[in-house]
């Protein structure tokens, strides 16, 4: 690491600096906004790696020279940034901002709660389900961000990969519904306490039982099979019930910091210490007087009891109701575990205090939960109503998730003999009225299959010529360009085909076309 106090700078005199026009060409707000949205949505690490940018540039240059374009061009900042993001992010929405937005639900972590999503899905959040990244529990209300992807249009815009590698064999997932769930305390992203899994009853347009549950592992960049979901076909009047709806009653426990330790009588056969301590440091003991600390540690020797210790101090341990007593003499310190107890004279008084305080805490807790639940339900009903949209439900699929992230009810479609392989080459026509376009991915959807096939420009695009297909790409200028069905019908198997996608004049209309085809 270099030292900031001794910076060595190279002096460059009268450098040629670029002019305004040259600098303007580097402006690329879309890229900045795209990265920002990915950070905001937790899809990109907060700081992009500086080294990644340099490597990214090299990769783009290599790709441009390898892909067969007739006129290699230097990478523009936009290309470079896209590669940079691609290296960091596994999930890459092709048109940032167009993907299904998260719905945000505020929930009290102490009580947990039920979330009703606009599609009819139900999330059952247990109490104390969230932790900070440092494994600290959260006591306040937090925001849960949740969204679902149900059709090829949603999947396309999500950028979520649908390829699944199992023992080296590549499958494409067909989805019966996919969810993404995240949790935030302010700007801090939270994780789920694995011992407090969330139960999700997801509305699905597919009641087939052949689907498994997969979790997207963004570290290994693959889907992990998590077993099967439970399918509950929808009858005419049926509505889903989350098992935890019934259990969503206030839980009879008190907040840790307010919780007093229930008094016990000292065991006359065990060693006890009377230790002076600051009541503010031990709120669980604050209401009591004349507390004794009974040694529970087997390593405590009777001889210790006879020593006139210089200092005896009390400390908290990781276990509730157990304290660490530190005995110090000269340079030696001995730590033993102890629990608070009362002698017979003080026990009744301590018990009365415990019962009184416990009752008070319970009453406050019940009132808090009642008020909070009412507020949260109101907000969630408003949000669900605001977001509600038509959704052809055929079933509910119930599953439990032990971590937050992306989960998919999927069926891996086995790799069948390739019906048609096409190598798509650009036609780079040197004409003023035909734009030369650059793209990186070809998207292909087929009627009746709830998935999106994505092919990079350097791999053969596989298309089922007998299917009803829609094939398109996105240019480097975020334009949607469709491949004409007429052109696709003329493609020859197993050999490079030249095909020119037609850029849609209006992105919204093009998206509507994909949306309509998806439904």
């Amino acid at each position, binding site marked *: 690491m270099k030292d*900031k106090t001794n910076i060595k700078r190279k*002096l460059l005199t009268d450098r040629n600096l670029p002019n305004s026009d040259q*600098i303007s060409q*580097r402006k690329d707000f879309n890229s900045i*906004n795209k990265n920002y949205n990915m950070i905001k949505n937790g899809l990109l690490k*907060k700081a992009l790696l500086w080294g990644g940018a340099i490597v990214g540039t090299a990769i783009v240059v290599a790709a441009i020279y390898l892909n067969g374009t007739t006129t290699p061009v230097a990478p523009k900042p936009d290309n470079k940034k896209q590669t940079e993001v691609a290296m960091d992010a596994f999930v890459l929405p092709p048109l940032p901002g167009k993907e299904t937005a998260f719905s945000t639900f505020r929930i009290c972590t102490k009580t947990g709660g039920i979330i009703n999503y606009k599609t009819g899905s139900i999330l059952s959040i247990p109490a104390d389900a969230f932790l900070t990244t440092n494994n600290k529990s959260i006591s306040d209300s937090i925001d849960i961000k949740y969204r679902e992807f149900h059709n090829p249009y949603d999947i396309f815009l999500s950028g979520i990969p649908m390829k699944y590698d199992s023992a080296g064999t590549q499958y494409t997932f067909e989805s019966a519904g996919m969810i993404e769930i995240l949790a935030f305390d302010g700007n801090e992203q939270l994780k789920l306490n694995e011992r407090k899994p969330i139960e999700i009853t997801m509305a699905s347009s597919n009641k087939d039982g052949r689907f498994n549950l997969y979790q997207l592992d963004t570290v290994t960049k693959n889907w992990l099979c998590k077993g099967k979901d439970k399918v509950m076909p929808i009858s005419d009047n049926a509505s889903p019930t989350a098992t935890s709806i019934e259990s969503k009653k206030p839980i009879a426990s008190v907040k840790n910091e307010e919780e007093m330790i229930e008094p016990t009588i000292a065991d006359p056969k065990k060693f006890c210490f009377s230790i002076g301590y600051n009541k503010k440091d031990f709120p669980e003991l604050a209401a009591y007087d004349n507390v004794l600390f009974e040694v529970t540690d087997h390593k405590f020797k009777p001889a210790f009891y006879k020593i006139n210790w210089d200092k005896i101090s009390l400390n908290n341990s990781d276990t509730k109701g157990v304290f660490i007593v530190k005995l110090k003499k000269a340079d030696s310190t001995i730590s033993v575990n102890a629990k608070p107890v009362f002698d017979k004279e003080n026990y009744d008084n301590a018990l009365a205090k415990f019962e009184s305080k416990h009752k008070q805490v319970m009453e406050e807790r019940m009132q808090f939960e009642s008020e909070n639940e009412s507020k949260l339900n109101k907000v969630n009903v408003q949000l669900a109503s605001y977001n509600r949209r038509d959704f052809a439900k055929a079933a509910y699929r119930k599953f439990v998730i032990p971590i937050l992230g992306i989960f998919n009810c999927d069926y891996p479609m086995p790799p069948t003999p390739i019906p048609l392989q096409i190598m798509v080459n650009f036609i780079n026509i040197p004409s003023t009225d035909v734009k030369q376009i650059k793209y990186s991915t070809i998207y292909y959807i087929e009627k009746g299959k709830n998935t999106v096939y994505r092919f990079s420009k350097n791999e053969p695009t596989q298309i089922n010529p007998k299917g009803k297909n829609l094939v398109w790409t996105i240019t480097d200028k975020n334009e949607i360009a469709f491949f004409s069905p007429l052109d696709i019908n003329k493609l020859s198997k197993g050999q490079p085909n030249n095909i020119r996608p037609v850029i849609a004049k209006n992105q919204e209309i093009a998206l509507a076309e994909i949306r309509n085809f998806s439904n």
Partner: protein
Amino acid sequence: MNESLTPYHYSKERIRLEEDLIREAKKDSSKFDILYKNYYEQIFLFILKRVETEDIADDITSQVFLKALSNLSKYKEIGLPFGSWLYRIARNEIYDLYLKNKIEMVVSVESKGVWDMIAEIGEEKNEEDFTKLHAALGILTDDEMELIELRFFEKRLFKEVAEILMITENNAKVKTYRILDKLKLMLRK
């Protein structure tokens, strides 16, 4: 030395308009576009003058605006142009990358700036002094060099120098003239 208003220095009315834009951008990141366009060139040049290549400057500039957008919720309006915040982010970003051995730092010396310094010191303009002063720049401390860069090679007002370095305007002046005194002594050696 003649002082000219750089695009950074806006009127109070312009700063108020900027604050409106910042408030809008806090709600909708796409509104940040206007601020980005307004400041891109000056932040890019500020960075370019301190690093070796345009590509490095381009990368750092992108990081600066991304950081600004990501931390916009923390931005507090204190009556200064938004640019002063961007300059500080840029400065930190450059130092950060330098300390991590990712980049080398450079000083883009302007000959005209060196002549201005000679005039400010009160010496006759001659080639020998120019050469001596140019060489003397290499032994300035980092803090001193930063002031000289901002004031003489980038022609910034003391007010602006102060805002970028987070010191008072008076302090910026005092420090600058102390550096000039130091350089004057070197010239006379």
